[in-house]
């Protein structure tokens, strides 16, 4: 048992470190912004966030130990059974699910909702074993973009699909699509507002554009590309994803807001690049910067939605100017301080 205890202790340390990345939610502007805008009326959104977070947070802690290492350790059958039984309890999600079960028994939560949460946890737990290199099958469906940096744009889209921001935005977009297809009589403002929520869900990612590049950061410096070309590939990927999500809602206003969000995001993305964990919400540079970004983005969104479609042109100009300016800055910035 001493061996099992030692392994569980090490596993607990490794898992706690990994769980710290969940803290990126604290610097994602979507949550305070929706709380401020919707208050208690935002229950549906908070439920979405909770469910979206539950899935990737439900990974099997035992997966932290490489399979070959686990097989090589001199553990007997009893040790292995104990390890298998105890390790899921290192994940706080298991305890949360237990707490929710007590709520469900006491009638403070519907059994159906508990079942949904339990299903997501089970799926996350099992699927964490099956994703090779953490890349789901649909990553292969991402098409290549035209141009010299087309493969880079494809990679950038896959990176966006590795953040939880995208999945909250997707669920919001699908809600709008459902109302459109069902021909339910929603006022046009409702679609616009849903569009703004999609924008809010995605905009923090623009502050950490290079967060998921990992070892590829050095490759950027070796490629004979200008800084603006690399930022353009990042921006094009973001706008493409945004456009698809905005199609059932309000595409033009969405694109205008997205361009301004990118222009505002370049400063922290280039000036203060930070690592981003996969299957977590994007973490911005600070909430105060996020507020400034949201104000500028919402102003652009509102200008196009309420004043005139032509106002998308100045938004595009701001994005292009920012891409050129920060592209130059990116080129002269050392990567090995």
């Amino acid at each position, binding site marked *: 048992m001493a061996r099992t205890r030692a392994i569980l202790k090490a596993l607990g340390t490794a898992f706690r470190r990994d769980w710290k990345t969940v803290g990126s939610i604290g610097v994602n502007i979507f949550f305070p912004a929706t709380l401020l805008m919707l208050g208690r009326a935002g229950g549906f959104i908070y439920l979405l966030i909770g469910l979206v977070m539950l899935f990737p947070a439900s990974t099997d802690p035992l997966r932290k130990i490489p399979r070959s290492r686990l097989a090589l350790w001199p553990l007997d059958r009893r040790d292995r059974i104990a390890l298998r039984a105890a390790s899921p309890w290192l994940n706080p999600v298991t305890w949360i699910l237990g707490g929710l079960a007590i709520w469900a028994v006491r009638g403070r939560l519907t059994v159906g909702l508990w079942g949904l949460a339990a299903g997501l946890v089970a799926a996350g737990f099992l699927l964490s074993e099956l994703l*090779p*290199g*953490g*890349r789901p099958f649909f*990553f*292969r469906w991402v098409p*290549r973009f035209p*141009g*010299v*940096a*087309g*493969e*880079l744009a*494809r*990679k950038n889209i*896959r*990176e966006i699909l*590795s953040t939880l921001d995208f999945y909250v935005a997707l669920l919001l977009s699908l809600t709008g699509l459902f109302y459109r297809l069902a021909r339910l009589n929603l006022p046009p403002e409702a679609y616009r507002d849903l569009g703004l929520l999609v924008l809010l869900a995605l905009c923090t990612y623009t502050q950490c554009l290079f967060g*998921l*590049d*990992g*070892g*590829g*950061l*050095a*490759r950027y*410096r*070796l*490629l*004979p*590309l*200008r800084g603006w070309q690399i930022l353009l590939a990042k921006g094009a990927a973001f706008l493409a994803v945004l456009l698809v999500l905005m199609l059932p809602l309000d595409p033009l206003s969405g694109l205008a807001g997205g361009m301004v969000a990118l222009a505002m995001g370049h400063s922290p993305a280039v000036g203060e690049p930070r690592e981003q964990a996969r299957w977590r919400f994007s973490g911005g540079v600070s909430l105060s910067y996020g507020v400034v970004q949201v104000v500028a983005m919402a102003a652009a969104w509102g200008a196009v939605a309420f004043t005139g479609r032509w106002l998308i042109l100045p938004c595009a100009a701001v994005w292009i100017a920012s891409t050129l300016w920060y592209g130059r800055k990116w080129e002269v910035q*050392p*990567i*090995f301080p």
Partner: protein
Amino acid sequence: MISCRDVTRRFGEFTAVDRLNLEVAPGAICAFLGPNGAGKSTTVKMLTGLLAPSAGTVTVCGLDVARHALEVKRQIGVLPEDLGLFDDLTVEEHLLLTGDVYGVGRAETRARTAQLLHALSLEHGRHTFAAACSHGMRKKTAFAMALLPNPRVLFLDEPFEAIDPVTSKIMRDLLEEAARHGITVFLTSHILSVVEQIATQLVMIRKGKVVWDSPVGELPQSLEQHYFDLVEAPVVEELEWLGPGRS
């Protein structure tokens, strides 16, 4: 083809590379040897424009690396220390990206990609994401990326480490063929037996300073012995607890 004049790189108080002078002729295979932390990778980073020297000038293909960074990048192929692969691209997509970025036509890129994947036994893993590749596959992908644009100079940081003997032989053959066609190769390695077989020029570095620079034929003794004498002699510690019956 490669020229360094009094190149120095400091990190705060620490001098990683100290007044390095170096000349590598076209078509040469220059092996840059030294222990871990001697300044090899720092030198490669300065030669490829990844890192600016604190003093001195670096010239590659007749171009000052600091002033003509973009033009130099178009002329060189690099296998960097950390391989520089994107986790979200497959092996094949990395090669297609390289072709696009270096201006190789799409059809030509596809043809070269197929040849390189075949030559380096990467065909079975062409659709594997880099994040899911073994270290050997990642290294071969980065090597193929360095070769694909047909560069004038190849910089390879530890190309033979952690790969199987067959791939090592294939890579050696490819490098010798490249050198025969006039491509200059600059590589770092710890595997002296491999270096001895392919290098035409040997440079040894210790604590940031060059301690030996000559054609391979001018070595006064075996490469290994010369390395131990000039760079670092092995120290064998006796582990008195090692062995059955010893606690």
